[in-house]
């Protein structure tokens, strides 16, 4: 494909390369606390095997994925859609050297392992809920 094949319209905002700017980036929550890493992304359906309708709207990023999807991305295969840990794209408020969310990481389903370890193990050990001295 030569350069001229690209659509010539100009876009408002930034052009992002998913591979370079999204995949494997750290995601911080609204307080700057690390929440998760972008293990994969989910875009709206593109019909596979059919000729593309030029008038159809371009696919958009629907959600960031984190958790078990990393294993299938690394070793191959595809988890069933119901098993994906989704973080809706609308929560993303900024994209820099890390992605920033507009909500607390504790509000996300995807960070349940952190809460589980906190409530069952770390929070129960004496001193676990105090600042270091």
């Amino acid at each position, binding site marked *: 494909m030569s350069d001229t094949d690209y659509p010539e319209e100009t876009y408002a905002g930034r052009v992002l390369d998913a591979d370079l700017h999204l995949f494997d980036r*750290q995601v911080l929550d609204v307080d700057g606390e690390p929440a998760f890493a972008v293990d994969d992304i989910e875009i709206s359906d593109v019909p596979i095997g059919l000729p593309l309708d030029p008038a159809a709207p371009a696919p958009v990023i629907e959600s960031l994925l984190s958790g078990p999807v990393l294993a299938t991305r690394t070793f191959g295969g595809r988890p069933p859609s119901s098993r994906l840990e989704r973080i809706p794209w609308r929560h993303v408020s900024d994209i820099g050297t890390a992605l920033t969310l507009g909500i607390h990481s504790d509000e996300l389903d995807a960070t349940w392992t952190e809460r589980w370890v906190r409530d069952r193990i770390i929070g129960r050990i004496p001193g676990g809920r105090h600042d270091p001295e």
Partner: protein
Amino acid sequence: MKKLLGLALGILTAIGGFLDIGDLVTNGVVGSRFGLTLGWVVLVGVVGICLFAQMSGRVAAVSGRATFEIIRERLGARASMANLGASFIVNLMTLTAEIGGIALSLQLASSISPMLWMPVAAVAVWIVVWRVKFSIMENVTGLLGLTLIVFAVAVFLLHPNWLDLGSQLLGQAPKQSSESPATYWYYAIALFGAAMTPYEVFFFSSGAVEEKWTVKDLAQSRMNVLVGFPLGGILSIAIAACATIVLLPKNIAVTSLSEIALPIAQAGGKIALIIVLLGFVAATFGAALETTLSSGYTLAQYFGWSWGKFRRPARAARFHLTMIIALIIGLAVLATGVDPIAVTEFSVVFSAIALPLTYLPILIVANDPQYMGKFVNGKATNFFGMIYLVIILVASLAAIPLMIVTGAGA
């Protein structure tokens, strides 16, 4: 005045924190077998660790991203998972060696079996990681580690033949030594791995985030590294020199920490011995803290978990759980009765093998203006960075063949 004090403190802790069980053992072994003929490797290693520690600290201060986040971001999920596996295992080996080293040092001081000291050491490390503030931890172990300067003093007290030592530094093999070239190069790689252990950059860059460095702190961090590490390197050579003067002529092999302390006892008697034992405990304890934290840093940064000692443990739960598990695994390995010195000797060689995976991504990101803005690498840094990448790659590729050929340096 306060600034000057901060600078002095930073440099002193960098000297004290430079040495760990890997440096102590490898330099002792090398000195007792090869004299100072491998001194140049320490020099090459120190320049390398200065270059890359400084680079990873700069990346962390400017972009706020620690080394393993960058490794994942640049190498992608798959390659960086292989890297994580390798780095984590090498780090676990180093952690095991350091815990064993604390126990061996305490055994020298108390003559209580190291098997009894190991759980004590692991619990002490955990308590510090669990409760003590990062800056206090750094400064106390670093300053106590400074007592290892006694090795440099001992070299003078032993009245060596300076001409001999000098000619060995320039490559003249000592008369008593009859080692093959393969073992020579095997130990060259071990020394290089001991000086450039990957956990040092994981710890250094994560420490920059822990202490909330900004661009303003760059000048001081550069001073700490560029002055502190070379002085630490001189101590490494002093350890080898002590072994060269006392152990090499009598054909004494280094099989435990007591042989490494022997020249000190000969040079300075009981008081010097007490000082050096304090130094052993401080150096191994400090490094055990750094490797324990590094096990948490690498895993948490790869998976994007919350991490850091500046948070309360409940706010970085998986990070703290990782460290607890790493300590338990280290203890379990030691409980099998393996010789901690042997674990140390293998850990430095495996460090050398894992080096390219760690240092390449740092070099790439330090050149990325999206991360670094105007603080990207200068031409000189890149020139030396590329040279070191080649050295690191050669050492990494040669390590396993040499290990097989020499029977792990036997």
